[in-house]
Structures are given as structure tokens and as C-alpha cells.
């Protein structure tokens, strides 16, 4: 695979910045919930930082993303502003959705975050429609639908891949195989690799190490190139591991302890950090400063969110339709 695209030094550092942001934001989210400062359903993306970070450096702000309830990593990697996100998950009127969507429905069209769904598999049919729009306009934009391994067993996955292939849509189906569909291991729910299912619809399917920024970047680069060139959709199965239970508070007793310990020991974030320094791509000081800046931004976002007002009850009548309800 030596002919595959490689991220240059600046891009590698940018991938790391996004990974560090996701990790820090996750750690802060769990801390804020644990401290009782915020109540929300929280689906940790910890362990899956590489996938969106190395994928979305191949995209522009006006490319589109449809993501899912476990999706803050996708959104942050796509450029979702921290303040808008934190105010939204805190249910405040300053949130991007005025507090009416919450953590499972974060939306930010300004960075192409068009839909966040709480329904397994539902990012894909909608992503097709957005990509159809790009195809009709010829605007060259790419739409990425992210989803988990569990979603590959729902009907919407199959309908969507088939339609995207038949219509040659500029869409990328990015499966984040974290080995767990809620509490059930992937191996117990399917006999085949997710990537192999692409063959059934006549599109390329690739399984890639989703914790390797170089492999992930190369796979995404090729999928984006295909989409922009009008060659149609790609299915990527990015292999990763979910460090925490399905939802915050889940004691994850069903997860094999040795396997989890192995995955955590191979935490992709410090691993990539060490590599950047070892290869001279970045310095310890440079990355430490970057991480401190991220912490400061999160501090500011959290305080902004928790000090913002809640929406008034009149919001119950707004945004149901364009016209306010009587």
C-alpha cells in the first residue's frame, strides 16, 4: 500500500489536535456528569478518536456529515464549535439547537453537521439524499454517514448502500466497528465482516485499522477522491474499540476484561502523540501547548454553557412547524 496517500507533517499534527480535543472533551464530559453539574445521556466515543480525525482532514467545512448518538468525536473532528455543543448538551437556550435537541440531536449546518440521529442506522438513508442534492447541483461536495457495527444489521443500511451504489452518489459509509452493538459483541450478530457487505451492492469495501491515523487517512482519502470524481460510494469498516460501556453509567460487565485492558493499553491518542515526537513531526512543547489550549477552550465552553439560561416554555410551540403553534 506504499502508493496510498500519506498525511503531510502539518496534517498529522492537525489529526492529533482533533484527537486530543475529542479525548479531552470526553474526559471532561464524564467528569462534569460525575460531579453532578450536568445530567445527560452520554455515549462516550473514547477509543475511537482516530477515525473521524484522520477522515475529516480530507474534507472541507462545506462537506456534509450525518452522525449518530455516539457522535461527539465525529462532530468535533468536523469543526463543531465547543461552546455551541456544550450549551446544547446542557439544554440551554444558547445551544446550537436552543437546547431542544440535546446530545443525541446536535446539529450545526455551518460545519456541515446536518443530522445527528438517535436511531441506529438512520444516518445513512438521509446522507444519500444530501449526496443526491450534491449530485444534482454538481457542487463536488461529499457526504459522510457514520454509524456503528451494530447498524450494519438493520434494514436501512442495506437499502442505503444499494441505492447509493445504483445512483452512484458521492457518499462515504463510515462504519466504526468498536466490537460492540450496545451490550452484544459483533461476532455474535453477524458471520461476515461489515466491509465484505459492500460487494453485495457493487461498491468498494475496505476494512482498515481505525486506530492507525495513517491507514485511516489513506482509506478516507481514496473514498473522498472517488466521491468527488463521481465514481460513487465507498464503505469503510474502521476497526476500533469502545473504551467504555454503551452509555454512561453502564458498568460494562459484558466486556471481556483482558481484551479491554489490551485496547486501553494501546490507547491510540498517546500512541500517536509519542510517534509524532519520536519521528520529529512535533515537539513535546508544541503538543503540550496545544493540549493546554484545548483544556482552556473546554473550560470556557463548559462555564459558558452552565451559566447560560434555559429556554422558555414558549419554545414548545416553536420549530414544530415554520409557523409558531397557536
Amino acid at each position: 500500500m506504499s502508493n496510498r496517500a500519506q498525511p503531510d507533517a502539518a496534517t498529522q499534527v492537525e489529526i492529533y489536535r482533533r484527537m486530543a480535543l475529542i479525548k479531552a472533551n470526553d474526559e471532561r464530559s464524564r467528569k462534569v456528569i460525575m460531579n453532578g453539574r450536568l445530567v445527560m445521556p452520554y455515549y462516550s466515543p473514547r477509543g475511537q478518536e482516530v477515525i473521524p480525525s484522520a477522515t475529516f482532514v480530507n474534507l472541507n467545512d462545506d462537506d456534509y456529515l450525518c452522525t449518530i448518538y455516539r457522535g461527539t468525536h465525529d462532530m468535533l473532528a468536523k469543526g463543531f464549535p465547543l461552546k455551541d455543543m456544550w450549551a446544547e448538551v446542557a439544554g440551554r437556550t444558547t445551544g446550537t439547537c436552543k437546547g431542544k435537541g440535546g446530545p443525541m440531536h446536535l446539529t450545526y449546518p455551518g460545519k456541515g453537521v446536518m443530522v445527528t440521529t438517535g436511531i441506529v442506522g438512520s444516518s445513512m438513508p438521509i446522507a444519500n439524499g444530501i449526496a443526491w442534492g450534491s449530485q444534482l447541483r454538481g457542487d463536488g461536495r461529499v457526504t459522510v454517514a457514520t454509524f456503528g457495527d451494530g447498524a450494519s444489521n438493520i434494514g436501512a443500511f442495506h437499502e442505503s448502500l444499494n441505492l447509493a451504489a445504483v445512483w452512484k452518489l458521492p457518499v462515504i459509509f463510515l462504519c466504526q466497528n468498536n466490537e460492540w452493538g450496545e451490550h452484544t459483541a459483533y461476532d455474535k450478530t453477524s458471520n461476515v465482516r461489515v466491509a465484505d457487505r459492500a460487494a453485495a451492492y457493487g461498491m468498494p469495501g475496505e476494512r482498515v485499522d481505525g486506530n492507525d491515523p495513517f491507514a485511516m487517512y489513506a482509506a478516507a482519502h481514496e473514498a473522498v477522491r472517488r466521491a468527488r470524481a463521481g465514481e460513487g460510494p465507498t464503505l469503510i469498516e474502521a476497526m476500533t474499540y469502545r473504551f467504555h460501556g454503551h452509555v454512561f453509567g453502564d458498568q460494562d460487565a459484558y466486556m471481556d476484561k483482558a481484551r479491554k485492558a489490551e485496547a486501553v493499553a494501546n490507547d491510540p491518542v498517546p500512541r500517536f502523540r509519542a510517534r509524532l515526537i519520536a519521528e520529529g513531526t512535533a515537539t513535546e512543547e508544541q503538543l503540550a501547548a496545544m493540549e493546554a489550549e484545548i483544556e482552556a477552550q473546554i473550560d470556557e465552553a463548559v462555564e459558558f454553557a452552565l451559566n447560560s439560561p434555559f429556554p422558555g416554555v414558549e419554545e414548545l410551540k416553536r420549530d414544530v412547524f415554520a409557523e409558531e403553534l397557536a
Partner: protein
Amino acid sequence: MSTETMAKPAKANILQAINAAIADAMEADETVIALGEDLADPEEGGVCGVTKGLSSRFGEHRVRSTPISEQAIIGAAIGASLVGFKPVAEIMLMNFTTVAMDMIVNHAAKLRFMSGGQTHVPIVIRTMTGTGFASGGQHCDYLEAWFAHTAGIKVVAPSSPKDAYGLMRSAIDDPDPVLFIENLPTYWTPAEAPEKDYRVPIGKANVLCEGSDVTIIAYARMIQEATPAVAQLAEAGISAELIDLRSIAPWDRETVLASVGKTGRAMIVHEAVTPFGAGAEIAAVLNEELFGRLKAPVRRLGGAFCPVPFSKPLETAFAPQTADIVGAAKALMAR
């Protein structure tokens, strides 16, 4: 069917009116696109030919036949609408909306609210249904109450070519999702033709004939059962007011309350099964608003509470008929 040929004849049927409405909207606005099973001309422009001619005129990039994949159809419509298109999606039969309920209920209806108004879903979902063609239990249900019960989606059910045209144009104009219910058995009934660019506002009922004794509120094919009932009641000395609701969600409370306030007696007639139907909602509002002025309890006439049967006598008996409406009105007068 071109707009020019639609505008001239004095008569048209509902199928032609819907075709003309979509064609005129596509002509006026290039963001209007259409998709669904068998929709394009190589597939005969829909199983009944409602979209015949559209793909030849506007291109198969804008009028697309799809796989038999209802979730993918509605998902594609939603996605395109999020980026500025106005898709008219066909779910061939209303029973098939069940396959796409996640897309319709969890996404189309809710994205505006859940995004705090940052996105919205201006799609039209066309779907046909109705008893009378012996299609049995899975091809002709009226399920409008399910959607009317969902915040964020509008529901209309025209009974004439003019209303079909006018409501389709309004539905395409509308910034929010609209479920557009087409009655299959009455597709081909000729009536007054619509004029080009005519609009029927969503949420506005039509008083088809005025009366003073009893108000009959109906929609879709039930108008064709109720119209002769009104004449028969007149012969019996009962003056019935017939309201074609046209829009189920939102429904025209003002017109209906004014009518029942005048007559003091009301009956709601629909093909959907009676329990928990649209009639129950309307009856509840009439009781809330007009209690004390009602001369008789509000009456509901709906389909039998069973799956639609195949056997002809059973299918005929399933839905309300003219004689049922006449009998119910007389019973209301006798109280």
C-alpha cells in the same frame, strides 16, 4: 400530460390534476424533484400513471424511479430537502408507509424542532389507498390518524381534482413535511378541472353544501358517499351541511365549529377504523368547545374495527356507505 392540455378542458380527474400540479411546480422551480417506485416513464410513470410524462419532460435526474426501498426513498427525500430541494416522494401505498415510519416520524417530522430550527424538511409524501378494489388487508388502509398524531407533519386528503391540484401545489410550497393521501378508487372520476397555479390552503375546509339541521364532516372518498346522503336527507326534510375537511392535520376548527355551532348536530365520516381515529379528535374538540349547545351527542362513522376484508360483500360493508350516513343523521335528528 402537459400543463397546456390540462388547463383547457373543463373536466379532469384527480390523477390528471396531481400530475399537472407536480409538472407545474417542477416547471416553476427547479429544486422540485420527485422519486419513488416505478415513477419515471420507462417504468410507465407510476403504477397508475400519476407521474406519467414527468421524467420525459424534466429528466430522470429530477424524476427518479427507485428500488423497492421505502426507508431509502424517504431518507433520500429528507436529505435532499435539508440542502435546499423540494422532493415529492411517492410511497406507492399507504400501508407501505409502515416500512418507512422511522424516517417519517423520527426524522422528517422532528428535524426542525430537534435542530432548533436550523434545518427543516420541506418534503411531500404522496401515497394512495382506499377500499373498493378488493385488495385485502395490506393494500388499502387509511392510516392518517397515526400521522396526524405526530407533531411536525401535516396531512391532507383531497376529494376532487381542483382540491388535489390546489393542495399539491400548497404542499410543495410548504416549508414542512406534508403527507398527501390519494384515494385510489376515485382517481379516474371526472369533475371540474383546476386552473393553473390554483392553491388550496392547507388547513382550510370546504363547505360543499349549507344546511341547518346536521353537519356532516367527511374527507376523501367519503365525500362521494355523503353527497347523495345529503340529497336523500333533503327529501326527508332534513337539512344537512356537508363539510369536506380536505386537511386532517391541521384541521379547520373554525369552519367546523361555526357549522356545528349553527346546526347543533355533528357526524364525522371516515374510511379509517373508528376507534382512536380523526373522528375521535374532532368529536372531542366539538364537546370541549360546544358542550351545552349540542342537541345530540357527536356521532362517528368509520371503518369496521378489523383488517380490510377481501370478500366483496365484506369489503363493501367495511366502510361507511350512503345509507349508513342517512340512517345516522336521522337518528341524530330523533334525539
